[in-house]
């Protein structure tokens, strides 16, 4: 894609160029938001908002030598993601995410590859194996088998309240283990 030509056509209001531009970037933008936030609706909103902000900035946008359109797009998107975290979880970046960033390239030659990041998968599965059996079981039932708390309570022969406590503690312990592994 010749970025300068596309940009010129976009500035002239060419809708065919807009479709091409959207097709080229949509999956990358969506995947980045989804990888960070893991909620489909919010990832869609952020994707949409990224395009809208880019469109609004088009009249004044100039592509300097050595820069690419995606540099600008991802800058917009990263800010939107940070805003979302700040508004909803009270911090711009989560702790583990910051630490993982040291180990892989978060932006974004191919987000699908980033998604399947072997490092994170390996680390999580190693950490899971270090959990006490009861914690490991509840995490597998809840996250991999997608069972409800009630179903898990029946399987583990516990009350729902006790199962919720167990779930919380299992996640907390898993976080501690992952942090220990990263800090080693």
């Amino acid at each position, binding site marked *: 894609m010749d970025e300068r030509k596309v940009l010129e056509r976009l500035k002239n209001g060419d809708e065919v160029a807009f479709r091409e531009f959207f097709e080229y970037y949509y999956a990358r933008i969506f995947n980045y938001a989804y990888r960070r936030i893991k909620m489909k609706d919010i990832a869609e909103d952020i994707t949409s908002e990224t*395009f809208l902000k880019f469109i609004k900035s088009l009249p004044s946008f100039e592509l300097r030598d050595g820069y690419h359109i995606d540099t600008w797009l991802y800058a917009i998107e990263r800010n939107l993601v940070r805003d979302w975290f700040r508004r909803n979880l009270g911090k711009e970046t989560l702790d*583990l995410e910051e630490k993982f960033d040291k180990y892989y390239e978060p932006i974004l030659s191919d987000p699908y590859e980033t998604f399947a990041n072997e490092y994170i998968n390996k680390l999580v599965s190693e950490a899971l194996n270090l959990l006490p059996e009861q914690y490991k079981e509840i995490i597998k039932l809840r996250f991999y088998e997608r069972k409800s708390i009630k179903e898990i309570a029946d399987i583990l022969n516990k009350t729902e309240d006790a199962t919720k406590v167990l779930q919380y503690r299992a996640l907390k312990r898993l976080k501690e283990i992952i942090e220990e592994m990263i800090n080693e």
Partner: protein
Amino acid sequence: MSNMDEKFDEFDKVLDKFLKDETPDFSKFTSQDVDVFEIAMLLKEKKRNPQESKEKVFLKALSSFREEKGKENSYILSMLLKIFEVLFDVSPLNNFEHLTFDQVYKSNEKTLYQVKFSLYLQSRQFLYNNIWSLQLPLGFESLH
């Protein structure tokens, strides 16, 4: 239900919505809850088919793209109207004297605009004469 039970219950409500791909309300989360929730984010599926919602997002973005383009066109037309006003001395002599052409155009009242324009033409003998004088060079038979 004790405070601790409420806390775990609240956490599970958020987690349950999160896992069902609904949007949770995080307002009751403490910073410790956020730390623990980060693990849930890590454990949830990593991929999702982006095509599922592509058209919906495209239409929204396209509409904004058109809107921006429309704003630009509207700006150009508005500038032309201002030039027109200056050239032909639009000192209002009609019922809409408190409005300029530009303001009427921006108000999106097409009928009002047409009425104002025709009243303006009627009220300006010199403009009528100017148009009349253009007949020969433009090859019109008559503007009557």
